[in-house]
């Protein structure tokens, strides 16, 4: 009879329970979770995410994924993102992108939203933009909130690395997304909110 050492790293597909009590719920080791999503059945002027409960649930970072387009005849659009309903001049923006001629770097100071270009306009049926937006430490009360986004559209073909800061050390409790040109988002536009443990 041999004596063997059994370590966690040698066990495949292990699961974790918080205790040995009957009925104890399995702890899923996944770090990233889909919290909610909105897929527009008809056009809408805005989408809002309530994230007020997420920090208490152990989430540290947020990600928003969008496959969206707006109404109107232009091929281009941008989202305007606001936190906690703040419409003051409390946002900065920067962008690295191609403008169909060259690579460009731009900035925006003391804006009233995060203005992230890269959403599709309504010019082409079926053409939606793609966006992956990351917000780290969304609930920190020691930091302003920085967002980083890889976004692009094929229609006025552009790819963007966007960034912006909400100049507030308040924890983010809500995220409001509208079109930066005050149009509505088209039916079929999809907005998904994910949260990561950290």
């Amino acid at each position: 009879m041999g004596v063997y050492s059994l370590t966690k790293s040698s066990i495949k597909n292990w699961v974790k329970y918080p205790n040995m009590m009957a009925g104890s719920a399995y702890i899923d080791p996944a770090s990233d979770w889909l919290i909610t999503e909105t897929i527009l059945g008809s056009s809408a002027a805005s989408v809002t995410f309530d994230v007020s409960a997420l920090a208490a649930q152990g989430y540290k970072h947020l990600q928003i994924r969008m496959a969206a387009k707006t109404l109107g005849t232009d091929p281009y659009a941008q989202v305007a993102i606001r936190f906690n309903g703040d419409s003051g001049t409390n946002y900065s923006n920067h962008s690295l992108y191609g403008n169909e001629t060259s690579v460009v770097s731009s900035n925006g100071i003391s804006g009233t939203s995060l203005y992230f270009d890269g959403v599709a306009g309504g010019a082409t049926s079926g053409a939606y933009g793609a966006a992956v937006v990351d917000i780290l430490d969304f609930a920190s009360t020691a930091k302003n909130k920085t967002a980083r986004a890889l976004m692009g559209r094929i229609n006025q073909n552009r790819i963007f690395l966007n960034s912006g800061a909400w100049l507030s050390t308040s924890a983010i409790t809500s995220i409001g997304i509208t079109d930066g040109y005050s149009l509505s988002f088209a039916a079929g536009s999809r907005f998904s909110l994910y949260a990561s443990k950290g």
Partner: protein
Amino acid sequence: MAAKELITTVTVGAGGAASIDFTSIPQTYTDLVLVLSGRTSRPSTAFGDTVNIAFNGSTASFSNRLLEGNGSSAYSEIGTRAIGYLPAGVATANTFGSISLTIPNYAGSANKSYSVDSVHENNASSGISDIIAGLWSSSAAITSISLTSNTGYNFVQHSTASLYGFNKGSDGVTTVA
């Protein structure tokens, strides 16, 4: 086993930290993703600070190419260990940069090619945005990661870095050949 798991998070405490370190990284994942929300204590003569990476205590055999914008113009550079640029000094107070680093096959025996998206942020025209292609020319498995300021200053309090591991797998339905 989940497709993506949190390995650990480092939070810089009062007084700051000269480095952010991940040690004894488990070798059981497929890929690593590191996200950093950071700022350094580089003084007011500058508006930011480059972050450098080291693997397994080694600063050798790194190379990169980056595309960068500074809020006004775009340019491309060749470098070594930079993984982005964080706010510091005169950059808007309380503003931290955001970096995401992906290292496929970190535990394998091939050279380590990695990808970085980095943004700085500042309520001013100057703001640094980077996409970076990096390479560590080493066949060693990555067992530790160290982040430091290029200018030797500290990461300030409240800087955080989270390290995640992706697990490859199969759903039994999707095919690959």
